[in-house]
């Protein structure tokens, strides 16, 4: 018996020892992994001091060619600082006012003749490139000439189209001749929305390179930061403050003030759920464009996070593009204004707003986005005209009380902190929109031959069932995506058979460009504007941009214009942006667009761009509106120059 027991005991002892060793190995592994995990936020994942690093979400996701920074040779994703940091514009937009100011230039361009075909540009003194060379007129002239001379550069259209020549007068002065009158020179060659088409490159770096084969990585820049490290897989990129930051464009602009972050890390964590988790655990300071649901989760998880407003409606409402349903006006039955107006009058805009973004939207009856500056320039001044506007039969479609009804619904839903007066509510939720009047909508449809079947479904004039297809973005531009479904619901209730086609970027844009669509939840370019001069966006309503279906266009993809609109735009393009006639003329264009209704403009865009105040403060907000929260624009640098350490 003993001999039987002993081996068993030995086996049990061995087994126990093995178990212990196995357990220790696992524990060691787990501890090792834990130690590899972000070390209690002392340092970032890439080893920089956390409190000195601003971590910014990458809008647009993973960058597939992260080590290419030449803005002209490749179709580069600029979301890792390329647009925000590497290339500054000559003139930049101040988004709160819509006014432009000189950035690399020292002053606004000076017209040298009355027909706006010759200009003088003065450059800022004292700026150096990150390799120590001076930034001067040679760089600007070289960039222009490089674009004029190289037919293989895909992104040179703006220069070729507008520039006849550019010559150096002295180190800080450039003289320009244009191919046509260009009273908005600073808008064409500067940055109005997102970034400029003309990006100055360093002459001393590019002059001996084949521009189409040159990666320009790491980029030599006039910004206060330079690229020091990056992920070959495109999920992060690290920028470090230059030792000679005082010679950078931002420091010169800010009279020698030093930007606070020593490092800027662009980082992509994946789908929205992951990005929200990352900010919740303080691994992100700026988070791009999330949904209201994501914000709900985030503000409960991390009390140091903020968005534009400190309470309802939370989101920033000043994005320069408004959303609505765009029609291909060359395709029947959408070529008839009665049909487009019938669909507008079949819309319950309160329901649409609630079902799209929980009511956190500002409605817009005009083809100018309802951002603060344009509310003051167009929406509020045009409120009386909207109230008096009548369809040809005298019917007045405007409803000025939409904002009040949205507020009523929100209060019933438990929203707190809403403004009390009607005036304040209209400033927040919009001056009004079109009535939902299904009887009038039916009358309009019947006037052009539509009829209903026994189930109340609408039939086309030829008696066949009417099916309306709305193109919507799939998995991007969440507001437009949701809007399409919200609109489809109300139009279905009116008896129209509506199909929403969710499309990825490729087919979504191809169909829009080639006119292979009926209607779409689109927004660019002719529902966008950022300044009282609506030129940058609405100029495309001119008839010169209208093409036949099947012929590709990148501008007027609604294929709509009228002689009246074209004549007004002809007058506008001959005037500079600050001419007193600009606003009255654009007001007339907006009125013409209401009459024709090629786009049912519905809501301004609300952007949830949360920031984290654990490590940084003085972010722009509704109470500190020195700049819009457009972190993916070139205005990024302006914000970086203002933020301060929060002391954590």
């Amino acid at each position, binding site marked *: 018996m003993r001999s039987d027991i002993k081996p068993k005991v030995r086996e049990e002892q061995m087994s126990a020892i093995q178990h212990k060793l196995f357990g220790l190995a696992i524990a060691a592994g*787990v501890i090792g*992994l*834990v130690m590899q*995990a*972000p070390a209690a936020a002392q340092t970032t*994942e*890439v080893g920089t001091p956390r409190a000195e690093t601003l971590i910014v979400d990458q809008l647009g996701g*993973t960058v*597939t*060619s992260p080590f*290419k920074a030449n803005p002209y*040779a*490749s*179709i580069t*994703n600029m979301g890792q600082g390329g647009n925000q940091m590497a290339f500054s514009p000559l003139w930049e937009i101040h988004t709160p006012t819509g006014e432009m100011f000189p950035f690399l230039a020292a002053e606004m361009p000076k017209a040298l003749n009355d027909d706006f075909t010759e200009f003088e540009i003065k450059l800022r003194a004292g700026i150096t490139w990150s390799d120590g060379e001076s930034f001067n007129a040679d760089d600007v002239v070289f960039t222009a000439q490089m674009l004029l001379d190289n037919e*293989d*550069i*895909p*992104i040179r*259209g*703006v220069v*070729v*189209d507008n520039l006849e020549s550019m010559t150096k007068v002295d180190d800080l002065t450039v003289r320009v001749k244009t191919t046509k009158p260009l009273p908005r020179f600073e808008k064409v060659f500067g940055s*109005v*929305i*997102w970034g400029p*088409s003309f990006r100055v490159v360093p002459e001393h770096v590019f002059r001996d390179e084949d521009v189409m084969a040159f990666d320009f990585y790491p980029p030599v820049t006039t910004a206060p930061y330079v690229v020091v490290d990056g*992920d070959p*897989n*495109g*999920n992060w990129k690290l920028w470090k403050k230059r030792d000679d930051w005082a010679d950078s464009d931002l420091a010169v602009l800010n009279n020698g003030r030093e930007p606070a972050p020593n490092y800027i890390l662009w*980082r*992509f*964590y*994946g*789908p929205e*759920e*992951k990005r929200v*988790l990352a900010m919740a*655990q303080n*691994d992100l300071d700026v988070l791009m464009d999330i949904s209201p649901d994501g914000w709900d989760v985030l503000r409960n998880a991390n009390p140091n996070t903020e968005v534009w407003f400190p309470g309802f409606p939370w989101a920033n409402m000043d994005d320069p593009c408004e959303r609505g349903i765009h029609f291909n006006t060359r395709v029947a039955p959408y070529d008839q204004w009665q049909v487009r107006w019938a669909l507008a009058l079949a819309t319950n805009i309160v329901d649409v707003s609630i079902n799209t973004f929980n009511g956190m939207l500002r409605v817009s009856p005009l083809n100018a986005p309802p951002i603060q500056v344009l509310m003051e320039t167009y929406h509020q001044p045009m409120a009386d005209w909207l109230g008096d506007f009548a369809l040809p039969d005298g019917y007045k479609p405007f409803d000025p009380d939409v904002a009040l009804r949205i507020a009523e619904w929100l209060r019933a839903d438990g929203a707190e902190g809403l403004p009390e007066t009607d005036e304040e509510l209209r400033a927040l939720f919009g001056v009004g929109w079109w009535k939902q009047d299904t009887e009038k909508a039916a009358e309009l449809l019947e006037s052009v031959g539509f009829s209903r079947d026994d189930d109340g479904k609408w039939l086309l004039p030829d008696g066949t069932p009417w099916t309306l297809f709305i193109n919507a973005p799939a998995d*991007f531009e969440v507001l437009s995506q949701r809007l399409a479904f919200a609109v489809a619901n109300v139009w279905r209730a009116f008896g129209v058979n509506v199909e929403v086609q969710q499309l990825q*970027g*490729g*087919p979504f*844009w*191809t*169909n*829009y460009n080639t006119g*292979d669509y009926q209607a779409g939840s689109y927004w*660019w*370019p002719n529902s966008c504007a950022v300044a009282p001069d609506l030129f940058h*966006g609405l100029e495309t309503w001119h008839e*010169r*941009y209208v*093409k036949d279906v099947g012929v*590709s*266009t*990148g*501008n007027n993809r609604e294929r709509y214009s009228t002689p009246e609109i074209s004549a007004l735009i002809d007058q506008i393009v001959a005037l500079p942006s600050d001419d007193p006639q600009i606003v009255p003329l654009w007001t007339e264009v907006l009125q013409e667009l209401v009459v024709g209704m090629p786009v049912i403009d519905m809501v301004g865009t609300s952007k949830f761009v949360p920031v984290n105040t654990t490590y940084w403060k003085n972010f722009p907000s509704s109470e500190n509106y020195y700049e819009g929260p457009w972190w993916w624009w070139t205005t990024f640098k302006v914000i970086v120059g203002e933020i301060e350490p929060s002391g954590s």
Partner: protein
Amino acid sequence: MGTLRFILVRLLNFVLVVWVGVTVVFVLMRLIPTDPIEALIGSMTSQGTIMSEAALDEMRRVLSDAFGLHGSIWEQYGRYLYRNFVSFDFGPSFSSFPTPVSELIGRAVPWTIGLLITSTVIGWVVGNVIGLLAGVYPNRRLSKAVEFVAIFVYPLPYYVLALGLSIVLSYTFRVFPLSAVVIGEPWTLQFVWNVIYNSTLPALSIVIGLMGWWVISVKALSSGVQEEEFVRFARLRGVAEHRVLTQYILRNTLLPQVTVLAIQIGLIFSGSILTEILFQYPGLGTLIFSAVVQGDYNLMMGVIQISIIAVAGAIFLVDLTYPFIDPRIRYR
């Protein structure tokens, strides 16, 4: 001669499958309602660029030449076959122009292979062993528990499982990173450790996701096999239990499992899209997702073609190795 003929027939099958596959891919890509140039222009202009029609036409001309979209469909097909079978050049990526597709795929393949082969094989081995034991000893409490867990895990949507693991192990306990962030010079110790550290959570999610199926399927197969007469006869003859388990039950259970494993490994080349997107893992799944989103059909064709060759190649190899696993095929 018999062996040579066997190999030649299967080789011919392999070539035919690949040719039909790549041709179907070529045709399908042309049927997608996406013009890569229009998609690119739309995407660029939606970010704020406004160009005149003349400037846009100029851009279309330059990009059409650069993308190789000129010529008739037959000329494009001829260039496509030449590129894919002779020069092994898939052309430039449209969305990352002018980076060659082969460079993007070459960069992504090691990541996908490393992650998916490791996790698929681990999932297969562990799942099969557990399933086998559970099938042979169905009445033990542990077997029942294993079956319960497998049945619970198997129907879980992968996204939910992976996100749940992320929340527990990256957010609540911060053991693993939320998404891959690889640092260090390639093939240094820091780099290798970093890759392992960053791959553990995605791999774990795949292993757990796959194991449910392996356990359930092997348990069912082994329960059936052990009721076969040759197993009963072996036990009656007094063959040792571990031999019955490994030589009689396991070998007969494995045959269909090997086939499925081979197909799974072949499919690896199209990447595990959800895993890679959720964990920002830089493999083929992320690449093909971005290609689809951006209408980059050179890139799509490149990744799908690699996948076709891999699946056809894996099946070809399984065909060749079957006779070694199953003597009945050898005798036929």
